[in-house]
């Protein structure tokens, strides 16, 4: 009976064809007694966009998608484009524009002083506040096996330019770029028989308890700043213990391991993208996680994309003026990215909830960047796009504000998931939740 139900759901999804490693997939068994879960997915897209082809034309309710977003046309009624939202918080402070922008994207915070060298030689540390995805973990992510996922596609920098998710000030959550390890994080124990699993839980609890004892012991002998370091380590170990020992096994059967992928090579970008996004949607389908961020390269973005026939450094390409045909290649990248999002939306739209609605109706995708236009490194009129019904915003619109603060958009998103905040990030860039969203 379980098998036939699984098959039925699978048939309804329809689009799993062509995803070979998902063959053994068992979709989430929808629970009739619970409301559909809410989900949040933040998507980072580096160095701004090819502006002329990004923004829709028309007015709020009656608009035409720009060339970049054509792949999203089937979901136009579930999209919300913004105009006039400025990431003002990133205009000044430690670091250069890309560093400040990527740091502020989901945190609304400024950067700490630090020693990470930016593109122009200026220096900065990590962002000085949590990111909204981590705030949303508390609101919608409780009880899942992986409270939040941070994924990357060729986002390989271990510094402020390579991270969008923060647990708290100066606590970056760097993305996982290797699909093999994403797979492992999601399905680590799912093949372990229940009796073995119980033994494993007992062992891990004992081991990690002892580790916590050793952390406490070492703490007595170190400097104050190192005590803080060990305290943070202790918290993480405690969370790991809770995660690995307290939760029931996932409701998904283990799909096939994607195996070793040369994920650091630019030529593998399309392959890694497909695998990471497949694993993300599978994690959502199985309710292993409800909160995720995905980074496509990093804020330095010194990559080419051979699969799009873009053979020079894309960061450099973003520096050309809008009229220069060379810069149009940035639009090719943006269009590809919109296609990746279209597939994600299609996947979410194929996940049926117990009440007959679709996961897409309960998910919010937030697509944004570190700057608006790479050629001037500006933070005004950011290219933000929201998709899905998760935050309760009225979708299918192109909403125009005048110099609204992006921090207020973050406030709106948090509150859209049941939060109750009046500021997010740097309070001086907050006026309260954005008008005309809900």
């Amino acid at each position, binding site marked *: 009976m379980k098998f036939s139900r699984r098959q039925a759901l699978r048939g309804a999804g329809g689009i799993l064809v062509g995803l070979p490693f998902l063959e053994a997939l068992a979709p989430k068994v929808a629970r009739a007694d619970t409301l559909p879960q809410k989900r949040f997915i933040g998507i980072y897209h580096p160095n701004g966009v090819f502006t002329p082809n990004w923004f829709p034309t028309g007015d709020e309710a009656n608009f035409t998608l720009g060339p970049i977003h054509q792949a999203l046309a089937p979901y136009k009624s579930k999209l919300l484009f913004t105009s006039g939202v400025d990431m003002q918080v990133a205009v000044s402070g430690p670091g250069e524009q890309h560093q400040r922008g990527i740091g502020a994207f989901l945190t609304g915070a400024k950067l700490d002083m630090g020693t990470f060298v930016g593109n122009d030689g200026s220096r900065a540390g990590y962002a000085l506040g949590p990111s909204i995805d981590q705030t949303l973990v508390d609101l919608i992510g409780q009880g899942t096996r992986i409270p939040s996922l941070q994924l990357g596609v060729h986002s390989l920098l*271990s510094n402020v330019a390579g991270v969008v998710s923060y647990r708290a000030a100066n606590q970056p959550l*760097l993305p996982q770029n290797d699909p093999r390890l994403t797979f492992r994080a999601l399905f680590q124990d799912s093949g372990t028989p229940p009796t073995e699993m119980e033994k494993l839980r007992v062992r891990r609890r*004992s081991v990690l308890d002892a580790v916590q004892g050793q952390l406490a012991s*070492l703490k007595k002998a*170190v*400097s104050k700043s190192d005590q803080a370091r060990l305290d943070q380590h202790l918290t993480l170990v405690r*969370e790991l213990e809770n995660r690995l020992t307290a939760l029931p096994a996932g409701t998904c059967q283990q799909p096939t391991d994607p195996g070793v992928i040369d994920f650091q090579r630019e030529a593998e970008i399309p392959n890694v993208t497909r695998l990471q996004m497949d694993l993300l949607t599978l994690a959502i389908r199985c309710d292993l996680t409800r909160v995720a961020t995905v980074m496509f390269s990093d804020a330095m973005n010194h990559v080419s994309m051979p699969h799009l026939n873009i*053979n*020079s450094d894309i960061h450099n390409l973003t*520096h050309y003026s809008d009229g220069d045909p060379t810069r149009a290649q940035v639009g090719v990248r943006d269009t590809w990215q919109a296609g990746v999002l279209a597939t994600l939306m299609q996947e979410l739209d194929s996940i049926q909830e117990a009440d007959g609605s679709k996961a897409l109706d309960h998910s919010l995708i937030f697509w944004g960047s570190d700057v608006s236009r790479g050629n001037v490194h500006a933070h005004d009129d950011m290219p933000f796009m929201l998709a899905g019904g998760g935050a309760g915003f009225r979708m299918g619109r192109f909403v125009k504000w005048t110099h609204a603060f992006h921090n207020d958009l973050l406030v709106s998103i948090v509150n859209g998931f049941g939060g109750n905040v009046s500021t997010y990030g740097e309070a001086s860039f907050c006026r309260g939740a954005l008008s005309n969203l809900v």
Partner: protein
Amino acid sequence: MCGCKPGPRPTDPDPVTPDPVPSDCAAEVTMGTPLRLLTRAEYNLTVRDLLGATAKPAKDFPREPLAQGLDNDATLTQVTGSHVSAYLDAAEFLALDTLTNRRAKIVPCTTADLACGDLFVATAGLRAFRRPLTAEERSNLNTLFGAIFATEGFDGAVEVTLQSMLQSPQFLYRDEQALGPVPQPVVTLRGFEIASRLSYFLWATMPDDALLEAAANGALDTPEGLSAEAKRMLADPKSMDGLMRFFSLWLYLDGVETTEKNTQVYPQFSPTLARSWRRSLELYVQDVLTHEGTLAALLTSNVMYSNDSMAMYGPVAPSAEFVRNEMPGDTRRGLLTQPGFLAFKSLPDGSSPVRRGVFVLDKLMCEPPPPPPAGANITPPGPSVTNTTRERFAAHSLSPGCKACHQFIDPVGFTFEHYDGLGQWRDTENGQVIDSTGGVVASRDATVLGAVNGVGELSQKLAASRNVHDCVTKEFYRFALGRPLTQADTCTATRLGDRFMGSGGSFKELMLAIVEADSFRSNANPEMTP
């Protein structure tokens, strides 16, 4: 707009050479090194020596933030959730792997009872924590051992206890603080603390039994004793691991391996070739370190390693096995002419006078040009079928904003022009004869100035330069301390440069000099220093 002004190069107040050197640098430790998390490379070598494990489990750990290329700056490292779950994975794998395949390596007795368990905790603990366990640490582990012993028996208890050791901060971090219960601003490292610092600097791994023994009996607590131990360790083959850690980072070998080329321009390119570049470069550095062991040799040796994927560079190799070639003529002379280096310091579709020039100014001379201004269009000129790279870059750098810096960068980079974007030798480009004249236009070291023809001649000048020796010294010293250098480190850095230069540029002599410096044997309390 740009930090470089036309005309003579604005030289910063020289942090290294000008003032007479004080006779004693002892009181200069003003910045503390925090707890040092094992880097991935150190973790892999440590479990090799601790458990006999060769699987390199740290390959799946999060990568370290780089501080101007170095991966061991303890002020930047930070453990995240990804770290702790990766540590758990690795510990579970390693414990079972060791117990199954190399039981005798960790189990010191055969009685399989609690007494044997306690002995295991003490002996494995000593090596895992790189010092004897405190009573509390030992008791923690014995409690764990006893609990699992009761339910799973002896081997289960060993496995689980080992897992716990491998996730303990005493294993994952190097405690080189010696702060003790009453904090002092500056402390002298003794015994096991200095043993650990010594071992990870010279070997990139944990202390061996002899070093632990020396730590226990106080032999490392005198400068003479420490020096004697360092000499023993430098004579050990494992010192190559320590040296290669530094050079891997300094040359960014990971980047060499993932270099990409446009296959429309370079159809010979493949990921296999990129991996060969890395290996070839690695073997080159090892070769120089094993034979001459000097900076001059690194910059001038005529050795090149190649395999069957590297036939375009001349020597024929029958298989994927690398062959050592001593190259005739002047085509391969030194690090700067190695195929892997040249291909990495190139564009995907051509050579790059800028990348090559900046490497020389930054990594060899420690006189880096400032980065381009934020708004500058820094896209290099595209490939052409009519003129030379040199002509295109020269024209490209004519605008005043670019020229301010490129007048210093490009003449250095142009000396490399006999090598294309794959690092292949060329006499002509697009039918025109290659012009590889150029040279260093401005430097605090006058001996490197002046016109040269080709990077071989440039390398000769660099190899003899005191400034280049000082530059490499500072990077090595920063690597040893695991923290940024400050003005207060100048005195020591100068003395190290004296010894490095005086020894004919011997890297092992430089490492010994660093070990013998007071700052290596000390640490400062971050709370009590500015």
